[in-house]
């Protein structure tokens, strides 16, 4: 049963991913991505990562996707439809097909290589500690991973500053 569910969700996640690329309208892309995220969350649940599943829904589906939707609706990109055409000189149809073929070939070769070789189990460190427990996550986050955790806050702040610099209308410029 759970195996069946896993395959169903994996197929949905993949279809969602394909939908993001092939959808003609940005709105369709966003909704496909949303479907893909939900399918992934179910896979996490199946694997026993309840916290991760909840975070996946809350953060990705809840926050990030809503942000995407807002941006699309505010900028009124929804109607752009078929105007997204790959007609720019470096992205001719033939070239992108070659690129896609090469990427697919490399991916396939990688898959075959991984399939053929026996995967060694975790080389050292033994079984990972039970990470799907809010208590454990907090201890890891504020203990062992406190440096990256704090650095991320600086990173987010810097990103905000960077985005503001690029996005804000400059008084001098608009005056010209």
């Amino acid at each position, binding site marked *: 049963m759970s195996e069946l569910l896993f395959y169903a969700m994996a197929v949905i996640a993949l279809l969602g991913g394909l939908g993001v690329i092939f959808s003609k309208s940005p709105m369709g892309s966003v909704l496909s991505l949303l479907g893909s995220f939900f399918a992934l969350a179910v896979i996490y649940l199946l694997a026993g990562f309840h916290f991760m599943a909840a975070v996946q829904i809350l953060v990705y589906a809840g926050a990030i996707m809503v942000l995407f939707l807002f941006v699309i609706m505010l900028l009124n990109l929804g109607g752009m439809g078929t105007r997204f055409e790959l007609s720019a000189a470096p992205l001719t149809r033939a070239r992108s097909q070659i690129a896609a073929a090469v990427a697919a070939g490399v991916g396939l070769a*990688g898959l075959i290589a*991984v399939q053929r070789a026996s995967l060694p189990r*975790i*080389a050292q460190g033994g079984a990972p500690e039970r990470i799907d427990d809010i208590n454990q996550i907090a201890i890891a986050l504020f203990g062992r991973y406190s440096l990256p955790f704090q*650095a991320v806050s*600086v990173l987010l702040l810097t990103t905000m500053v960077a985005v503001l610099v690029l996005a804000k209308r400059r008084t*001098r410029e608009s005056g010209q």
Partner: protein
Amino acid sequence: MNASVLKTLFSDAAYAALAPLFALGIGALAVLVAGLFPLGKVARAVLVLLTLLAAAALNVGMLLGDSVPGLVLDGTFVADRTTAMWGVIFTIGVGLAWLFSRHYYDEDASHQNEHDVLMLASALGMSLMAGARDLIVFFIGLELLSIPLYALAAFRRNRAKSVEAGLKYFLLGAFAAGFFLYGSALIYAVSGTLKLDVFADPASRAKILESPMALVGVAMLTGSLFFKISVFPFHLWVPDVYEGSPTPVTGLMATGTKAAAFAFLLNALLALPSSTSTSLAIIALITMALGNLGALVQQDVKRMLAYSGIAHAGVVLLGIAGAVAGDPKQGGAVQAALFYMAAYVATAGGAFGVLALLERDGERMTTLEGLKGLGQRRPYLAAALTVFMLSLAGIPATGGFLGKWMVFSVAVRAEMIPAAVVGVLLSVVALGYYLRVIIAMWMQEPGEDSPLASTRAIALPATLASAACVALVLVMGLAPRWFLDHM
């Protein structure tokens, strides 16, 4: 995990190790907040300078001190003399870019405050990268360095080239970041840890690298690092991005990013088996060839320096290949790379700075045509640029020469004689385009229609910065003892 574990985690050593990072972080925040208040330009500049000086002083303290914190925070971050030296190099690189940017944006001076915050944040990212012994810490450092640079590259939003540079750098950088994360995930899946020290023990390294998954992971990691240091085949973005970005930012990209990525790459060498040394050397030589040959045909000096930067990355990579092959001198490659990058930061930082000074009130001042006759009009600037060109070419008595000599001797010690010979020959090719700049400046009269370089007086910060660069290049070339003793 109980209190005592936390105590060992957050020991005094950990705080000492992170002190330069705290200085940069707090300084960046202070500059950001200072933007809220009607402080004068000078007060803000003092704040930035104090931040950089504090970080540099803390690093120098670590260099000269009796003991260093070493590995802290459960082995995810290291602070020793090498990282302290890198820290000094980073603050010099960022300081130079900042000084040269002072009067660069005169026609559009808004957001100067945010500009400075972004520069300080990128310095923080570099220090994080250099000390990282864990892939997560490194990745966050990498992003903390890259994201400000994406914005800084596109800082002159009203210039199409600047926006193009920012977008190109951002898109390719985002892909490189994706590769890095995917590679880390694969390595984690095999080894169960993100710490680099699993690779220190040859037995566990061999076991991890048995798995094709880990090999793919290491390849992805290497690819994304090669992107940052602009090594073949990930170098194609460099000329466009370097040309389009504001010149002081280009200087920061050329010096800081490269130095930080090499700092980590030297740490990550442990992960590479010695069998990869031949392919590394071949990649290094191809990079040098492409960079030098590409530079030969450029008319724009900024673009030429971009290609020359590719060639210089190839040289350091050759040293790294030598270290992977087994350099009998312990830490020889680290020392060589440190010295090389220190000289390169002073040289390329200075060269881009001088170009920024020439460029600021004329659009196309950075062509060879525009440099003609500069020796008569601006003798001091021309002299400084001459010193930088000679150092980039690796002429004796400059820091560039000694750096090259040290890197090539790593390759020779590792018995990669043919590679070293080809490398030296390629460096001779490089003389061709560096000398062209010198000839244009001193031996050619300005043409009829060649644009006249700026006649404006040069501001104090830029004068100080160029003088400091020239001094550094010459001191590193003539009296390198101090640097070598402290590396």
